């Protein structure tokens, strides 16, 4: 701790020195420089993909780097417009009144990066393969598709077995990405997409370089090259920003933020995400199967204080985040009350309770420290078991062997996990399952959203878990950079519209 303080102090000092040296020696950064079409945009990211095969490999890092930039589906989402569904490889679509038939009009003039033209056949086989091959990511999203056909060269029709209002949204995900039929590209290290950028080089353990695809069907990308610089270490990332190695740094450490701000070359931005910090209770295991215990654990946490402690977080008042349909601010359903928590624990006969929190070791210690002391205050001894993510997947996710667990659920529209009793939450409530099924089956968006909100209220009332916070990561965006996206950057990073001003 001492060391850290010392370091922070010297960092501040140096930040100040830099500031003075900057103003003394260099010119002021051009406030509205001309966008340079030959520029390279360098973006610091923290998490690197393990390979480039987006069809078969999970992980938000892959979606962040490749979807919208390199690969595209028929439709995509606009994170900055509340995740609204917008056209991509389809120019328009119609949905039959019964919600079963989706007809897409294919965009003309689309080519893959190898030069070949996109055909309806490519679309049909891509989606059919994604449905049939269980090893393809999110294959289950297409399980409900009864048939995929192409009545003419510019139309693709998908028929569902039963209505699913989330289907279009599912097509914005990995299962909906379009690949060339019979492609022999080694997708683990190379690509052949239709996006505005192609993968130029991948230096594993270092960076991924994208270059503008000149044959792109839409408006050409604003920069000639994008370098995604993978720098996991926070202080290294800060140094990279301070010394001008990167134009944009995502997920910066708020404690080091002042150093970056001190350069005067960056503005700090914070957008919305669907990245939910969820403290899962093993609903199937005593004593957490007792709702009084679950409620007590929620009452013991001061969520506002936690968000302040974490800095890059805000309270998440319910299982659904603001960017998703069905969101309601459920503040007040539970508010910090350690006295009541102690009472409830006593009622449940859970005095001297000792619980284990299984948490992947990638999360900062601030969170666990906070929880340990909050629970100690109500007489619950919390043991923290740090594991690596792979172990977490086996122990918690697959074997459900845990009391409490914490991970960040980054996916949008994943409320279905509360309606699935086999999911690791182990939350089993017939009413929630029924409401969720109805919300999918209806063709009316408003009605669907209302049903979800109703289900979310029950999940919250039942204290199925504690929604600790919504991530609000900060990004340092260079003053030379324009049109950088804001929301959901941890899962989508569409960079085609970004421009960099010449010096």
């Amino acid at each position, binding site marked *: 701790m001492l*060391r850290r303080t010392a*370091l922070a102090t*010297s*960092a501040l000092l*140096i930040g100040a*020195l*830099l500031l003075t040296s900057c103003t003394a020696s260099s010119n002021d950064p051009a406030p509205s420089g001309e966008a340079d079409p030959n520029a390279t945009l360098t973006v610091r990211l923290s998490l*690197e993909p*393990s*390979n480039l095969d987006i069809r*078969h*490999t*999970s*992980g938000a890092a892959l979606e962040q780097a490749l979807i919208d930039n390199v690969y595209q589906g028929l439709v995509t989402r606009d994170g900055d417009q509340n995740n609204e569904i917008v056209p991509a490889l389809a120019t328009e679509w119609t949905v039959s009144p019964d919600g079963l038939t989706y007809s897409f009009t294919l965009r003309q003039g689309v080519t893959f990066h190898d030069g070949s033209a996109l055909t309806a056949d490519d679309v049909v086989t891509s989606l059919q393969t994604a449905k049939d091959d*269980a*090893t393809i*990511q*999110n*294959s*289950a999203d297409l399980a409900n598709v009864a048939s995929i056909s192409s009545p003419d060269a510019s139309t693709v029709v998908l028929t569902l077995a039963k209505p699913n209002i989330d289907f279009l949204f599912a097509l914005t995900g990995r299962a909906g990405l379009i690949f060339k039929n019979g492609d022999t590209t*080694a997708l*683990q*290290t190379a690509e052949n997409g239709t996006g505005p950028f192609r993968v130029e*080089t991948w*230096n*594993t*353990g*270092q*960076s991924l*370089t994208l270059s503008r695809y000149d044959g792109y069907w839409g408006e050409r990308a604003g920069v000639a090259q994008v*370098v995604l*610089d*993978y*720098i*996991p*270490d926070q*202080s*290294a*990332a800060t*140094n*990279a920003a*301070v*010394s001008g*190695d990167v134009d944009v740094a995502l997920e910066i450490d708020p404690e080091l933020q002042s150093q970056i701000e001190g350069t005067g070359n960056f503005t700090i931005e914070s957008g919305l995400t669907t990245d939910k910090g969820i403290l899962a209770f093993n609903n199937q295991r005593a004593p957490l199967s007792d709702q009084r215990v679950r409620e007590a654990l929620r009452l013991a946490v001061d969520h506002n204080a936690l968000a302040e402690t974490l800095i890059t977080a805000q309270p998440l008042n319910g299982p659904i985040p603001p960017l998703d349909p069905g969101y309601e601010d459920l503040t007040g359903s539970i508010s910090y009350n350690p006295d009541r928590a102690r009472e409830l624990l006593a009622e449940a006969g859970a005095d001297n309770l000792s619980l284990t929190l299984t948490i992947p070791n990638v999360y900062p210690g601030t969170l666990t420290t906070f929880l340990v002391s909050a629970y100690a205050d109500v007489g619950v001894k919390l043991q923290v078991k740090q*594991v*690596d*993510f*792979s*172990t*977490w*997947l*086996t*122990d918690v*996710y*697959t074997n459900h062997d845990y009391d409490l667990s914490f*991970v960040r*659920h980054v*996916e949008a529209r*994943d409320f279905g996990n509360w309606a699935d009793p086999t999911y690791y939450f182990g939350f089993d409530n017939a009413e929630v399952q029924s409401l969720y099924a109805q919300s999918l089956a209806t063709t009316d968006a408003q009605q669907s959203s209302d049903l979800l909100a109703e289900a979310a209220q029950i999940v919250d009332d039942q204290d199925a878990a504690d929604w600790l916070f919504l991530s609000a990561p900060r990004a340092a965006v260079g003053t030379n950079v324009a049109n950088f996206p804001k929301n959901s950057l941890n899962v989508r990073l569409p960079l085609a519209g970004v421009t960099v001003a010449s010096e």
Partner: protein
Amino acid sequence: MTRYALTRLGLLVLGLVVASALIFVSLRVLPGDVAQLVGGTQASPDQVAALRESLGLNIPLWQQYVEWIGGLFRGDLGTSLLTGTPVVTELVAKAQVTLPLAAMSLIVALVVGIPFGVLSALGRRHAGGTALSVGAQALAAVPVVWAGMMLVVVFAVWLGWLPPQGFPRAGWNDPGAAFRALILPAVTIGVVEGAMLLRFVRSATLQAIGQDYVRTAAAKGLTRTRALLRHGLPNVGLSIITVLGLQIAGIIVGAVVIEQLFTLPGVGRMLVADVAARDLPKVQGELLAVTGFVLVVGFVVDLLHRLIDPRQREAS
């Protein structure tokens, strides 16, 4: 000498075989598997099972080991589960960062350790020598990570002389930039390792000063310092070679840490990422290569010892 070398070589091979078995078994004890990671948090158990099969993970363990060992004899360390590329290819690529880094660190360690170790022993009754010794003691206790951060703050962020992190994307095609990128990491490892070496050299030198042959040489008219340099140091040199062998292992470990801190795409960073991804065929190949490297260093040190020290040769 030949017989000794052959026996020693036999031991080296035996060491590698034992290491390979240990590496293989110990990695299998790790919980979690790559199929699960590839599947992620939205995959059903059926999907994970399908992935496991497609990745070839349901082959019996003994068969996996036999295939791996068989490949070793053909110089094939196996294939990465995640990227499908041969482990050897990736090792060669990453070694282009790690080996130069280790070599530069070693040079820094030698420059810091040997002259200053001797100086500190000679000046043990002066304030300077004591300061050197105390300073080395403090430096040797510094965690590599902290030393690295301090160097970055001063030389990269403050003075702006050297890059704070990263390696040029062109690699060694841009030799100047590549060299500059390795300076701070190498100094970080080298200074800490050099401080340890300094303390060793100091005590070995002090011991030599008290030896009869140094006293005899001094009695014959050489100054104490010259007697030490002419007669004492060659003997000290022998034990330094042994210590250096051990330090190379220390440098490799230091490189793993430092590559994280400086975001250098070397063997250490690759290893950490691959363990997290449970890409076991790749991890075992990488570990075996590193182990093999350290064992070979030990082998060379032993042979050198023999060659340099006539007493050991006569004994055999």
